[in-house]
């Protein structure tokens, strides 16, 4: 059934354009029923999984010999994500129906969106490492399609490419990491690693695995310095931002780190890497969020910051995992809400800049209510779920290695988050409606459902944690730590001093409000950041690397693919010589020192000298016919060598063919110009050097081949069986027409094709419109 949920969504993605055509403006509602149904189905597991049960349905064998299977495993962590993917997914599909109403590619959009949903669901329920990777890459690909959905805008195309390259490179690193992990653990099934109690902390490959897996997770979850692709991805329509770039896909990196922490976690390297990268991202992005003015950009930076906090909490370990899971769930709800609110405001008023809006409260009251609930949760105001999450967070951090720094970091994040919350939920809505705001009107039901449901869920989660929040977070934490669910939460709650918590929270909120009040000054005094941030990581470095790669490609093409056949041959041969000499210069040298039992005979020496002389003559003669005559001489000499060394059949063929060759040459050369010399002395000299070096290498190869004993010789078989089996006494003949008759047949076919080719070329020549020379009729 778990696999069915994944594949039914892929199927839905395929038929989505058709459904859109049939159902028209209700398509969003129709399509949303499927993920909503699966959300209800997954919600049915909350109680069972909350008690510590793990659902492992039968797996589907895929590539058995490589240990690849479509196996699934639903533990607390997977269940929480599966609920987010299907639940938020259903709301977003309905929302998209309102947001993109009337768009001529709406059907395609639903297809991409639901294909992403299926990939993400596959990712979170998979147990096999290779299957995880495949779904991981599918989420990158579908994300690329969604960011670039408005493909007629250059900014959208650039942002899509940027996201694709960053997450794609991370994906490659992840693949290597997963393969190493499989090798180190001896299995690609994650559940087998858990059951076997395998921890890789002491394995020699551990550092490699950690670096590669972290690269994959950090690029996907937009950690510093890879954070720049996420604000860029805001080019996507608002439903995509709400879904992929806040609630689900960008959390895939956090998901992976959480999932693997029983196997990879618990080491110094793990703790420091995650704490430092996550902590820096958390503070840095929160600060950028407080400075931004565009709705979605503010939200994008707060998302990056929250992701950093989650990574950092996973690095802290111990009760930190519980905080990470709680924060993750809270964040998905309030950030999904706020992105949809931002989309609604943008859709209704056509304004993206929060500073240019005011007084929307009277025009869009329901949207404002949802925004206020979401923002309160984001700022961590009691009694919202966001407060609970913050509450969980304050416990474990002081215990961590970098504890005091992280406390300050979390504090800073809380301050900037409050400022950002005020920017998105207070600034555009209060005051007197200005011109831009008056142009809008309250959004329709499709645009309201998502924000309202998610923001109310956030409130309920804070007021009545026992309903769904506690079992989900507890079982997800249990999946990460391996403890029993009820123990997982209590240990972290016990560490919190309520007094400090309330005082620090209040302080953060107050300071956030202060920063909000002086935000113009904040932006101006830190204007340097506008230039610094792109330089530190983002577009600038990315563009440099990209254009550098293209430049290198062009250079390489100019050097190697310059269109001259001579250069190609020269490059290939020089490369070959370098390779052979590099690998076996010594062996080649020794090959020449071999003691030969076969004494040189006088006749043999004469023939060899004749062959060499005629070969050289063919290259130096300036007259075509002289060169052809030399060529004929070389052919005869090589035929005589065949006679002398016991291969009369070969010699006879060589004589016949040589005669024909000379004839063809003479006939064709009649139509061709005299030899012309196009190159200078230096070029000729260097070509001779290359050619002689090549000849020397080939001579060495012959000597090596002679000394290689190729026993058992298969020729013995032919000699023994020629008479009994094939009734022939000329063994070469028997091989050609009997033992290897199929080869000979192939050879005849080649000859036939060549003949057809020759005839075709000659007949075209007869019809040529302006022949340079009259056709003499070669055939």
């Amino acid at each position, binding site marked *: 059934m778990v696999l069915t949920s994944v594949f039914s969504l892929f199927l839905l993605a395929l038929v989505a354009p058709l459904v859109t055509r049939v159902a028209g403006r209700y398509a969003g509602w129709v399509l949303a029923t499927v993920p909503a149904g699966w959300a209800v189905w997954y919600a049915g597991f909350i109680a069972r999984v909350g008690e510590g049960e793990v659902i492992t349905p039968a797996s589907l064998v895929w590539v058995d010999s490589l240990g690849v299977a479509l196996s699934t495993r639903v533990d607390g962590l997977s269940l929480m994500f599966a609920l987010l993917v299907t639940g938020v997914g259903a709301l977003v599909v309905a929302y998209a129906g309102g947001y993109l109403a009337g768009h001529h590619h709406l059907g395609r959009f639903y297809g991409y969106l639901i294909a992403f949903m299926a990939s993400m669901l596959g990712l979170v329920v998979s147990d096999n490492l290779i299957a995880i990777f495949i779904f991981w890459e599918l989420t990158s690909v579908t994300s690329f399609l969604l960011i670039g959905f408005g493909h007629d805008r250059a900014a959208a195309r650039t942002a899509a490419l940027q996201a694709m390259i960053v997450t794609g490179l991370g994906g490659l690193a992840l693949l290597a990491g997963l393969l190493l992990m499989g090798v180190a653990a001896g299995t690609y099934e994650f559940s087998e690693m858990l059951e076997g109690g395998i921890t890789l902390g002491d394995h020699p490959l551990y550092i490699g695995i950690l670096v590669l897996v972290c690269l994959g997770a950090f690029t996907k979850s937009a950690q510093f310095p890879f954070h720049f692709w996420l604000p860029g991805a805001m080019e996507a329509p608002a439903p995509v931002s709400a879904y992929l770039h806040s609630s689900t896909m960008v959390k895939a990196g956090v998901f992976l780190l959480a999932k693997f922490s029983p196997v990879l976690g618990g080491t110094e390297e793990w703790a420091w890497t995650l704490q430092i990268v996550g902590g820096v991202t958390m503070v840095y992005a929160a600060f950028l969020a407080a400075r931004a003015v565009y709705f979605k950009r503010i939200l994008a930076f707060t998302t990056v910051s929250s992701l950093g906090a989650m990574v950092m909490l996973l690095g802290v370990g111990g009760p930190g995992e519980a905080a990470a899971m709680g924060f993750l769930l809270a964040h998905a709800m309030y950030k999904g809400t706020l992105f949809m609110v931002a989309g609604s405001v943008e859709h209704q008023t056509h304004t993206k800049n929060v500073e240019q809006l005011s007084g929307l409260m009277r025009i869009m009251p329901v949207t404002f209510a949802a925004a206020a609930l979401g923002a309160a949760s984001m700022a961590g105001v009691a009694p919202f779920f966001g407060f609970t999450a913050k509450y969980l967070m304050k416990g474990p951090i002081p215990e961590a290695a970098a504890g005091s720094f992280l406390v300050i970091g979390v504090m800073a994040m809380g301050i900037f988050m409050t400022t950002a919350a005020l920017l998105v939920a207070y600034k555009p809505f209060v005051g007197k409606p200005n011109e831009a705001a008056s142009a809008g009107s309250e959004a329709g039901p499709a645009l309201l459902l998502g924000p309202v449901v998610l923001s109310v869920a956030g409130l309920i989660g804070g007021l009545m944690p026992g309903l769904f929040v506690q079992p989900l977070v507890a079982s997800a934490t249990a999946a990460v730590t391996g403890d029993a669910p009820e123990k997982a939460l209590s240990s972290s709650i016990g560490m919190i001093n309520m007094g400090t918590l309330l005082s620090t929270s209040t302080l953060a909120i107050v300071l956030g409000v202060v920063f909000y009040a002086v935000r113009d000054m904040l932006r101006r005094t830190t204007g340097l950041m506008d230039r610094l941030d792109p330089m530190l990581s983002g577009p600038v470095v990315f563009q440099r690397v990209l254009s550098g790669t293209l430049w290198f490609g062009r250079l390489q093409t100019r050097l190697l693919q310059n269109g*001259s056949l001579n250069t190609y041959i*020269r490059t290939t*041969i020089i490369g070959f010589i370098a390779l052979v000499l590099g690998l076996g210069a010594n062996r080649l040298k020794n090959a020449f020192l071999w003691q*030969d039992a*076969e*004494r*040189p005979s006088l006749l043999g020496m004469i023939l*060899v000298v004749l*062959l*060499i002389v005629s*070969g*050289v003559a063919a*290259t130096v003669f300036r007259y075509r016919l002289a060169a*052809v005559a030399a060529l004929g001489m*070389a052919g005869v000499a*090589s035929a005589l*060598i*065949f006679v002398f*060394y*016991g*291969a*009369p059949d070969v010699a006879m*063929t*060589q004589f016949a063919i040589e005669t024909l*060759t000379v004839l063809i040459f003479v006939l064709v050369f009649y139509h*061709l*110009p005299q*030899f*012309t*010399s*196009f190159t200078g002395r230096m070029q000729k000299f260097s070509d*001779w050097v290359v*050619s002689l070096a090549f*000849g*020397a290498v*080939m*001579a*060495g190869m012959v*000597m090596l081949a*002679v000394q290689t004993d190729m026993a058992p010789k298969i*020729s013995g078989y032919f*000699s023994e069986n020629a*008479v*009994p089996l094939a009734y022939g*006494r000329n*063994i*070469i003949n028997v091989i*050609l027409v009997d033992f*290897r008759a199929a080869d000979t047949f192939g050879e005849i076919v*080649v*000859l036939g094709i*060549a*003949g057809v*080719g*020759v005839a075709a*070329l000659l007949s075209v*020549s007869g019809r*040529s419109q302006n022949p*340079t020379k009259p056709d003499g009729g*070669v055939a």
Partner: protein
Amino acid sequence: MHLLMAITVGMMYATGLYMMLRRSIVKLLIGLVLLSHGSNLLIFTAAGLSEGNPPLIRPGEDGMVGPHTDPLPGALILTAIVISFAILAFACVLVKRGYEEVGTDDQNAMNTTDQ
């Protein structure tokens, strides 16, 4: 003798390659022939040389008696000779046609598909 033959093979490859590195496409044809001589002799020599005794079974006997030349390289070279002849014939006509169309035998002037 093997060393002499190896040097001969090397010389055939060297002269063949030199001709293929010329810009005149007619010379490329000559290089092709020299290169195939080199390859034939390479197969022949690599299998080991022995004078006399072709691989022919005398009437009345069921198999070869005494040392004799390996028949397999012979069979391979026979095939190679015929195939290289087919290639050469096709290449010759192609060069002739190319010259008629382009009016030059400089390879570097023949590197575009449009005239």
